[in-house]
């Protein structure tokens, strides 16, 4: 009797069986939503090749690919973790300033441009990663470089 753990929830099943041994291990990324959003463009700048690889693998697998793309997925995880790790090493104060601002302003990038400018400068100086917004029209200032955000609470 009572060799089974009681489950009180009828919808959520938490299965603590670890992955089989033949699948190589990878440490999961530990950053939460606001730090990830703050670092997202730098993750994109460094890891574009890996991310594109993974997305191509998923596309080629035609809706499957959970097992087939594990190798690419591990590369994506490791690359993102390396970016977070480097930012933590070199620009921790600016990084925290930015993501705490984001967390306070509903994760709206346009409300935290001053903190973002400091972070972008620090990351560019130390890690040589630059924030670029993909598909910005030619000859137009990208939105993160504009001097004034019209509706922002803090410039």
């Amino acid at each position, binding site marked *: 009797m009572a060799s089974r753990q009681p*489950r009180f929830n*009828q*919808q*959520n*099943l*938490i*299965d*603590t*069986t*670890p*992955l089989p041994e033949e699948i190589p291990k990878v*440490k*999961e*990324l*530990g*950053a*939460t*939503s*606001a*730090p*990830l959003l703050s670092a997202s463009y730098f993750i994109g700048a460094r890891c574009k090749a890996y991310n594109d690889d993974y997305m191509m693998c998923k596309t080629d697998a035609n809706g499957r690919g959970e097992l087939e793309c594990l190798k690419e997925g591990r590369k994506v995880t490791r690359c993102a*973790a*390396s970016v*977070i*790790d480097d930012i*933590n090493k070199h620009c921790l104060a600016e*990084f*925290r300033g930015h*993501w*705490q601002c984001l*967390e*306070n*302003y*509903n*994760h709206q990038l346009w409300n935290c441009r001053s903190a973002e400018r400091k972070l972008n400068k620090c990351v560019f100086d130390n890690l040589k990663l630059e924030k670029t917004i993909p598909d910005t029209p030619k000859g137009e200032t990208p939105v993160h470089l504009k001097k004034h955000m019209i509706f922002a609470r803090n410039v």
Partner: protein
Amino acid sequence: MGVPFEALLPYGIMIGMFAFTGGALGQLRWMQNGRKRPRHGLDIWDQVMMQRDRRLTGFARGQTDKAEAPAGFELNNPWKVEYRFF
């Protein structure tokens, strides 16, 4: 013939009471959000990211910038299941 000030006292009381309750409820909501402004206009992506935040930190508004997740994080992702699986 000005309005006597006694006529305006009830309005002062009403405005004061509304201001107090509004401020108190706002403060309560701020405290429930971990001493941060509440999130609003959340889409599905924001909601699943907040669930992930809860799995990482134990609190939906908790944040951490560590590069590596704590041990066991990869296994505490709940599956949504139907009754027949229990």
